[in-house]
């Protein structure tokens, strides 16, 4: 069958860049394919998507060589606006892609641009609203929607135009597990019901590998793997295991590793359903060595009593919160988009003042301190690393924070050196933070808030848009910090990351703290807020969350 889109030897360099973002990429995309596009930050995934819909080179400029065709259109001559009827692109950040201010108008925008008759627009808008469960929000201003709802609106706006080819650039990076499942279910429905071709760039492989009919892996602007999911899984076994879903990693450990074993490996499970079928024969050989939850015995860093948080009296988002966070603890704070997680942690360093109750930081009432004074003891990293960058180099950023926190002389130098080593910034010191990749920016912003050696480190959604390798590095760093006596609190939607990092999990929702306990108990048995491994083994090995906590019987090793 003829390809819907083809790329022939495409090489592209952004204006002012020294290296190409796409390097001799050739690809044919067939009808009804669901292609999962994987690769680290800066590997060229977004650029590839933008090349397919013509934004590269028309919108971004730069140097373009090779040829991209979509249906009969050559993107060198056809502008993105002309391709819009065939190619729909959902961007990573739902907020900046919105043009109008209410849901139904936003969905209608693309249809109006295509010159569709007003009566047809009404029907198409209605269908798009229904297909994504947005009917109740049709007249809602976009400014009142959560990130998940906004991303659904963005998808609805593209679906409404009925493109042949749908490109999705990390659409779930800002969503909670439930919203992510809903969004991906809508994508799957679209693929099954309409036969639309979908190219999905994602980092969270466990969520979408099973949806794919084909997997591309990019590195340095080139496609290094182009295979079906099983062939990709076998390739990943030989040195890129972090790219595999946890259940696949679990079964991969039955092999002794190496390319030969990988080549000889049979079918690997990609979903819990797959794995359950394969587990029947070997379940008895699995043993858990999950360690019991550590006793909470470190000094109290933060104490919260009867806290009520919100934006106006009588409109509390969360109430009756009582918490004690201790040194050495690794805590994950979870809950639905809009449940009040970020609002809650803003009260832990004084950025927001409570409606009621009290917060004490290292024994001192927080209301007696300014945020800047609290910064030495409580580091809070917000969701957007760019908010921290006001200097021209990474070195200046770190030094500026230390000066602002009141450090001077030898202590300042020591803290600066320690931070640079701790966060592996040596090679980046003279770079402009804004020129760095997403993962590097997070590290620099983290350095800017933690350089004063605070007792409490809070990170709000640090893994948004982060590739698996950087996620693993961040998890290791947070574990190290906690082992050294810091208290680490991570606000996250990423259950797999939470399971890897946290010993204790808090769940907020419905205006209160719903659960507070060891990760092995809180994340055990949940439908969405639980890991793949837990969903697989919850009956045979309850409480197990990650594949690292399970071992196969020695006879099989």
């Amino acid at each position, binding site marked *: 069958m003829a390809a819907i889109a083809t790329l022939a030897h495409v090489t592209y360099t952004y204006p002012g860049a020294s290296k190409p973002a796409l390097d001799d990429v050739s690809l044919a995309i067939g009808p009804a394919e669901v292609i999962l596009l994987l690769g680290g930050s800066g590997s060229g995934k977004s650029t590839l998507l933008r090349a397919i*819909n013509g*934004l590269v080179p*028309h919108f971004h400029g730069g140097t373009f060589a090779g040829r991209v065709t979509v249906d009969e259109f050559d993107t060198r001559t056809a*502008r993105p*606006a002309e391709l*819009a009827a065939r190619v729909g*692109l959902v*961007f990573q*950040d739902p*907020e*900046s*892609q*919105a*043009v*109008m*201010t*209410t849901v139904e108008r936003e969905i209608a*925008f693309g249809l*109006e*641009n295509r*010159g569709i008759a*007003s009566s047809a627009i*009404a029907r198409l808008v209605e269908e798009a609203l229904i297909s994504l469960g947005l009917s109740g*929000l*049709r*007249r809602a*201003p976009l*400014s009142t*929607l959560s990130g998940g709802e906004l991303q659904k609106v963005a998808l609805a706006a*593209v679906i409404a135009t009925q493109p042949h080819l749908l490109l999705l650039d990390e659409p779930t990076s800002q969503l909670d597990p*439930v919203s992510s499942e809903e969004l991906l279910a809508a994508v799957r429905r679209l693929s099954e019901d309409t036969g639309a071709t979908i190219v999905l760039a994602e980092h969270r492989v466990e969520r979408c590998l099973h949806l794919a009919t084909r997997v591309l892996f990019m590195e340095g602007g080139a496609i290094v793997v182009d295979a079906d999911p099983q062939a990709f899984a076998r390739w990943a076994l030989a040195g890129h295991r972090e790219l595999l879903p946890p259940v696949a990693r679990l079964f991969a450990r039955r092999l002794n590793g190496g390319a030969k074993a990988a080549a000889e490996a049979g079918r690997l499970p990609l979903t819990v359903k797959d794995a359950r079928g394969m587990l029947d024969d070997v379940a008895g050989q699995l043993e858990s060595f999950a360690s019991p939850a550590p006793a909470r015995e470190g000094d109290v860093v933060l104490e919260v009593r009867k806290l009520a948080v919100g934006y106006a009296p009588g409109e509390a988002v969360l109430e009756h919160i009582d918490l004690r966070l201790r040194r050495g603890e690794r805590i994950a704070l979870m809950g639905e988009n*809009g449940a009040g997680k970020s609002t809650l942690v803003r009260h832990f*360093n004084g*950025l927001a003042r409570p409606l009621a109750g009290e917060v004490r930081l290292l024994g001192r009432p927080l209301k007696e301190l300014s*945020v800047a004074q609290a910064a*030495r003891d409580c580091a*809070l990293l*917000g969701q*957007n690393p760019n*908010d*921290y*960058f006001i200097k021209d180099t990474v070195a200046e950023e770190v030094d*500026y924070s230390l000066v*602002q*926190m*009141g450090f001077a002389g030898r202590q300042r130098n020591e803290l600066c050196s320690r931070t640079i080593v701790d966060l592996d910034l040596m090679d980046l010191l003279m770079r402009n933070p804004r020129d760095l990749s997403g993962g590097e920016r997070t590290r620099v912003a983290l350095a*800017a808030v933690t350089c004063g050696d605070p007792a409490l480190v809070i990170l709000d959604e640090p893994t948004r848009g982060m590739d698996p390798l950087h996620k693993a590095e961040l998890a290791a760093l947070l574990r190290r910090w906690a082992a050294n006596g810091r208290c680490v609190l991570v606000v996250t939607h990423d259950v797999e990351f939470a399971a890897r990092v946290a010993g204790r999990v808090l*769940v907020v*929702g*419905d205006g209160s703290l*719903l*659960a*507070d*306990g060891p990760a092995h*108990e*809180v994340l055990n048995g*949940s*439908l*969405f*807020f639980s890991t793949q491994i837990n969903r697989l083994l919850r009956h045979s090995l309850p409480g197990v969350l990650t594949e690292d906590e399970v071992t196969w019987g020695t006879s099989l090793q």
Partner: protein
Amino acid sequence: MTLVAEQPAAAAGRVRATGAAARAARATRRYGLARTRPVASLAYVIALALAGFVITDPLQLVALLAVLFAALGLAGKLRASLPYLRVALYVGGFLAILNPLFSQGGLDVLWQAHLPLLQIRVTIQGVAFGVSTALRLSAVLIAFALYNLVLDPDDQLGIMSRFSFRSGLVVSLATRLVPVLSRDAERIADAQRSRGVELDRGRRRDRAAARIPLLSALLTQSLERAMDTAASMEARGYGRGGRTRWQPERRWRFADGATAAAAGLAVAALIGGLVAGAFHYRFYPLLDDPWAPLADPWWLLALAALATPLFVEARWRR
């Protein structure tokens, strides 16, 4: 484990059910003028602003302000209008104080001073004129606030696009940009506070100086956001040509028709009264009787017309 209320999975499901429904209801609920069809609301706001320009009698202006506040209140926008009211208060107060000091007209002298280069002569007439000017300015500003708060930017775009879609889109994007910029600025300031930067200490000048370095971050993010929005527009076919225009179907209610008719009547009464001299209140050399204009038929007609939408919408409020 402390399960504070229930198992997280069940809790998460419940949260979604209650949270999403409540948010949807909250987001789409509209009151008063905000429920009225955009064309009717726009006509009404224009009539109110015209009244602010035309009327000069202080007591009539007080009545007009009462109508404006009632309209804001019925739309549930009183709190949101506080920034506009603050501007009206500052600018109006400035005018009310300054005018009597520099206006030399009027016969009833309250206080005078002879300075080397300046003779100050404060009269009752000067004070009354200053107050009247402040009230007029406030009325126009509050009418503008009503326009901004009640008329959805997409509705504004819908109205403007009948004449020029591009201009309407620029206005719509700019309207969207203001709250986004404000949120960005707030977030950047919070990020800087979280790394130890004192932004809230010292005098106003010091606090402003501490925020200057933040502008670069704000500007960069705004540019990046603008680029993303532009890319999104192009990817969604903007600029392809042959664009159509879609208006969501909204049933014409009695209140819509009544508001539009009342606005038309008010404009007619205001223009008629202006031509007939009904709104010409004399401040100098002696004040006219401020109560007399309240009984003028043109004024009564205009007031009745301007007040009608309030009663109609209040009746229709559920």
